[in-house]
């Protein structure tokens, strides 16, 4: 099975690989995995509390090329979006952008799950802080 040029590009030059301090109250961390293929994906967002805009996103994925490309693309899309906009990102958009074949659709689902997990983690942390303010 041939990977699309975009997948190869993200695989060879993954964007935003790395990690942020998960204890930072403005950082949300999403860790998801797919037991079937052994993939594990960590995706983090850093949110500007004043604007609610995601100012940085990092990921680290152990898995196939499509899983790496899906999460790499996800971090590109996340930057500059508000948390609510980010919540709207659908796996089908990732599938279309990367031209993923049906057998690799689950990689995009994993990326969407990682985004949602990161946002939920951020919100969970942010709520008590706002109550105190």
């Amino acid at each position: 099975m041939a990977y699309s040029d975009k997948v190869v590009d993200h695989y060879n030059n993954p964007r935003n690989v790395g990690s942020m301090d998960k204890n930072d109250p403005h950082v949300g961390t999403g860790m998801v995995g797919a037991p079937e293929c052994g993939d594990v994906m960590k995706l983090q967002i850093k949110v500007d509390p004043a604007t609610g805009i995601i100012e940085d996103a990092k990921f680290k994925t152990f898995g196939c090329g499509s899983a790496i490309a899906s999460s790499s693309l996800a971090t590109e899309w996340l930057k500059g979006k508000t948390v609510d906009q980010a919540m709207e990102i659908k796996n089908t958009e990732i599938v279309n952008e990367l031209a993923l074949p049906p057998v690799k659709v689950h990689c995009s689902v994993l990326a969407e799950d990682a985004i949602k997990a990161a946002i939920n983690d951020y919100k969970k942390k942010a709520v008590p802080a706002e109550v105190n303010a």
Partner: protein
Amino acid sequence: MDFYRVLGLGPKLQLNSVELQQLFYGRSRELHPDRFARAEPSVRAAALEESSLLNDAYRTLKDPVSRAEYFLKHRGFDIGEQGTKDVPPELLEEVFELNMALEELKSGDESARPQLATARDHFAALLAQSDDELTNLFAAHDASPAEAVLRQIRGVLNRRRYILNLLRDVNGYLSN
């Protein structure tokens, strides 16, 4: 559940491997092609088909893991499908850390080797533990079948698959 039917078994998760083998041999003799040499072509074809089903059934049911997967599939669970994410978060963390260590070793950092050896032992223990859990859950299900128990079994199967994949990778690198 054809695999259970062809062996004349009720829908139980706990199966005795000796009894299972005896059932398999018995049914194999009944379905042996020699017995159908002079039968109608349609009857002969049916026996052959049943015999092939029997072989698949025995191969699947004699292994507790593939048996449980088969069982769950026929109870409407999406076992083995990509997209099942029923894995505890702590395990994901461990899987992630172990992958990090593997990557360091791959990039030539030998200092990761002892950490990997420790991790391998830990994951081997986790594997044994999940096998015990399966045995207990099989018994619990057979005593009183419940959807909740099947869901627990699916969780263990997913965890087990993750651990197996990792052990394979780690052993591959440690033996190099």
